[in-house]
C-alpha cells in the first residue's frame, strides 16, 4: 500500500523474487514509478476502505506493507489488515518516532525511517570523524 519511491522499489524487488505482488495507491499516476517488467497487479483505490481491501484480495494475502506518506493512514490500514483480514505478517511505516513507539507497544510491526535514517547518518559521520582523527594523529 503506497506506490511512492519506497513502495515501488519494494514491490519491484518482491516481484523479481517471484512473489505474487499487488500494489495499491490512491493516485493511479503513482504506478508510473513501477518498471515495465513489473508483473504484479496495480490497483487504484483508498486503502483505508475495507471494501477496497477486500476487493484486492487481502484475505488471501500472506503479508501487508503500508508505506504511504501518511503515518495515520499506514497505522489504520495495517490494523485493518491485521484485525479485520487476519493477515499474519504486516509492516507499518511511521515517520513520527513517538507514534512509532506507541504502536510498537500496541503490538504492530513498525519501522520509523526517521530513526533508522538518522542513526545511519550518525554512524557514517562518527566513522568519518574517527578516520579524520586518525589522519590528524598519524
Amino acid at each position, binding site marked *: 500500500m503506497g506506490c511512492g519511491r519506497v513502495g515501488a522499489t519494494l514491490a519491484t524487488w518482491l516481484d523479481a523474487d517471484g512473489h505474487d505482488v499487488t500494489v495499491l495507491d490512491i493516485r493511479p499516476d503513482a504506478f508510473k514509478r513501477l518498471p515495465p517488467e513489473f508483473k504484479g497487479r496495480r490497483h487504484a483505490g483508498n486503502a483505508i476502505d475495507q*471494501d477496497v481491501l477486500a476487493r484486492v484480495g487481502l484475505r488471501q494475502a500472506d503479508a501487508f506493507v503500508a508505506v504511504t506518506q501518511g*503515518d*495515520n493512514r499506514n*497505522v*489504520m*490500514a495495517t490494523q485493518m489488515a491485521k484485525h479485520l483480514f487476519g493477515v499474519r505478517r504486516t509492516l507499518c511505516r511511521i515517520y513520527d518516532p*513517538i*507514534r512509532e513507539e*506507541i504502536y510498537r507497544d500496541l503490538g504492530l510491526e513498525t519501522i520509523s525511517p526517521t530513526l533508522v535514517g538518522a542513526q545511519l547518518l550518525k554512524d557514517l559521520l562518527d566513522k568519518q570523524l574517527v578516520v579524520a582523527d586518525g589522519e590528524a594523529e598519524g
Partner: protein
Amino acid sequence: MYIIVVGAGKVGYYLAKELLEAPEGHEVLIIELDAAKVERVTQELGDIALRGDGCEAATMEKAGYGRADMVIAVTGDDEDNLVVCQVAKAKFSVPRTVARINNPKNETIFKQLGIDTTVSATAAILAQIEQELPIHGLIQLLSLKGGGLEIVEVKVPQRASVVGKRIGELLLPQQSLITLIVDSDGTPRVPSNDTVIRAEDQVVAVTRRESEDALRAALTNSSSPAAPGR
C-alpha cells in the same frame, strides 16, 4: 470535565461552542492545525484553541491530555480520528474517547481497537431514512390475469422478526404463498414449510392485491422497535 476537541471544522467548532455553553461548565480545548481556523475559534469563542497536530505527542503534552476526561476527535479524516483516540488512550490513559467516522463501515474496527464511542453522520442519516421510508418495500413483479393475484418480491431485512423462522410458522395473509427464495449468495430455493427464512433473503410470493401491505409487514417488520443508530 476537561474535554479536548481535535479538529476545528464545522463539527468541532459548534461542538466546542455547545460544550462551553452547557450548564455543567466544561473546560474545553480545541486543537487545530490550520491557522485560519484557530484564529476564528479564538475570535468567536475565546482563548480555547491550540494550534498543532492533534496526534503529535508534543502537542498532546502541551494540551494536557494527561488530565483530560474526554477526547473527541472530529476531523474530516477517519484515520486521524482513530490515531488521536488510540494515542490518547495508550499514552495518556484518557478515560473516554469519541471518534467521528465518515465511512460507517469503520465502526467495527474502531470499536475493536478500543475507541469508546463512534459517531457517524452517514449512519445516523441512513437510520433516519430506514425509519422514514420503507426501503425494504415490496416490488410488484407481475399481475396474474384474473382473480386479482400478483407475484411480488420482498427482501427480508436484517432485523425482521421472521428471520430464523420456518415458513410453516409464519402468519401470512390469506391466499399468500411463498413460491421462491433467493438467498443472499444468489442461490434460489423452492421453499417448503420447513424452509427457514434468513436475513437478506429475497422472497418471491403470490398474493392478493389487497393483501400486499399485510404481506410486506409480515416479512419485513422488526421484532422490537427499531433502535436508531444501531
